[in-house]
């Protein structure tokens, strides 16, 4: 980019956004669109949502801003989106965890502040298989060794996650349920990044994290990948077996999806989902996804709606199997 373009482009974009729009400019969208990201910077949601926002800007011809509202394993951002005006100008970038909050509230006998019915799915932007990882200094060399240890002395194994009932807690819960263990010690942290750091520092022995977030550490020999939760082996790690191959029927992908709050007018929903599908085709988005190291997992609105129904059921089951956590 030319430097002059840089300065002028910035100013022009702002000026365009700041201009008062008369009644004639009713076409949606006529001003800045905000994507609320429920997860902290540097995580998968952040990595995927930012290029999408940039690509969407070129399709919608309006500024698209990413507004990070991280906290409480994504519940804060979801809460912000659900209380926003449903006019199509507020989108939510979320993941597997979205359907789980209401289940958690039910578990604790609270009235859910929002359920999955409060959101309209727009598209799935990516889906990354999750790995079962251990610190390289841990004695477990294979999945079988880990499972045997977990069965024998579960209370000796500490595993980290990005948050209670969050997207990196659920797969471990599914694995525990599948192998019939329930006493491993859970170390919740403030997000995917801190959870990986805890494992790198050997403060947690194991964790379930996505391929993209941990590939570097696996290649550098700091972490050992024991198994993949994917349907097939990951292209980046062809030597790591899937759980399915080893007779454990669990699959889990960490996906990132876009939503709007319930009550958003249907024309706005179809404009947005169409624009997102178009933006996903742009090199701006697809190149970024490839560079980040994600396998493409885009699903347009119809397919994503169907997928989300099934996935929500899986997440809800996992929450129930974790059960009420003391405290």
């Amino acid at each position, binding site marked *: 980019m030319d430097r002059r373009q840089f300065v002028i482009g910035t*100013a022009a*974009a*702002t000026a365009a956004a700041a201009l008062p*729009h008369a009644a004639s400019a009713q076409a949606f969208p006529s001003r800045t669109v905000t994507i609320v990201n429920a997860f902290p910077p540097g995580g998968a949601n952040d990595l995927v949502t930012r290029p999408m926002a940039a690509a969407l800007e070129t399709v919608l011809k309006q500024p698209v801003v990413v507004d990070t509202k991280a906290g409480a394993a994504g519940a804060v951002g979801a809460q912000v989106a659900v209380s926003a005006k449903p006019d199509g100008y507020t989108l939510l970038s979320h993941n597997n965890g979205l359907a789980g909050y209401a289940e958690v509230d039910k578990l604790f006998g609270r009235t859910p502040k929002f359920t999955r019915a409060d959101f309209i799915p727009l598209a799935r932007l990516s889906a990354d298989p999750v790995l079962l990882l251990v610190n390289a200094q841990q004695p477990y060399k294979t999945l079988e060794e880990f499972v045997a240890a977990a069965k024998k002395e579960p209370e000796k194994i500490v595993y980290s996650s990005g948050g209670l009932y969050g997207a990196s807690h659920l797969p471990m819960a599914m694995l525990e349920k599948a192998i019939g263990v329930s006493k491993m010690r859970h170390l919740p942290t403030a997000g995917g990044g801190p959870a990986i750091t805890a494992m790198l520092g050997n403060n947690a022995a194991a964790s379930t994290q996505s391929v993209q977030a941990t590939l570097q550490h696996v290649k550098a020999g700091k972490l050992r990948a024991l198994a993949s939760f994917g349907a097939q082996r990951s292209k980046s790690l062809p030597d790591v077996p899937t759980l399915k191959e080893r007779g454990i029927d669990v699959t889990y992908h960490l996906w990132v999806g876009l939503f709007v709050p319930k009550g958003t007018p249907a024309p706005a929903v179809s404009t947005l989902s169409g624009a997102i599908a178009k933006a996903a085709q742009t090199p701006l988005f697809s190149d970024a996804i490839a560079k980040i190291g994600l396998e493409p997992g885009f699903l347009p609105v119809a397919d994503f709606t169907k997928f989300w129904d099934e996935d929500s059921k899986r997440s809800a089951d996992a929450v129930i199997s974790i059960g009420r*956590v003391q*405290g």
Partner: protein
Amino acid sequence: MTIRADHVAGGALIAFGVLVFAISADLPFGTVSAPGAGMMPKLTAGLMMLFAAIIFITGKQSAPASSIDWSDRGHALLLVVITAIATVIYTTLGFIITMTLLVFSLLVVVERKKILPAATYAVGLTLFAYWLFGMALKAPLERGLLWF
């Protein structure tokens, strides 16, 4: 017995601590191996009450409460009220109107400046801030109902 500044401060904070305990009653303390959501609030509120109690007990050495100088209270109250009004109207009226009114009323009501210089300064300052934050840094400012 004269009431001392530390008696007032210590007493107020002990009362505040009692209030915290009352409203955090439903937060579970958890166990030591799995500490709950209520552990930290109760621990810190307890510490706060402990320190407040020490301040209360040793309060005899402090200055009498009546000696505290509150002569600036009128100024403080006016500032708080004007800023509070600005906060109430900010999201409805938007950045430019609210900020102009805020600066203008501070100058006219609190500082008794003449209307014309106050208005000029208020408008100029607001437009400058609007340019700096909104245009140069692309920070989304509150636009309010009127779109500016």
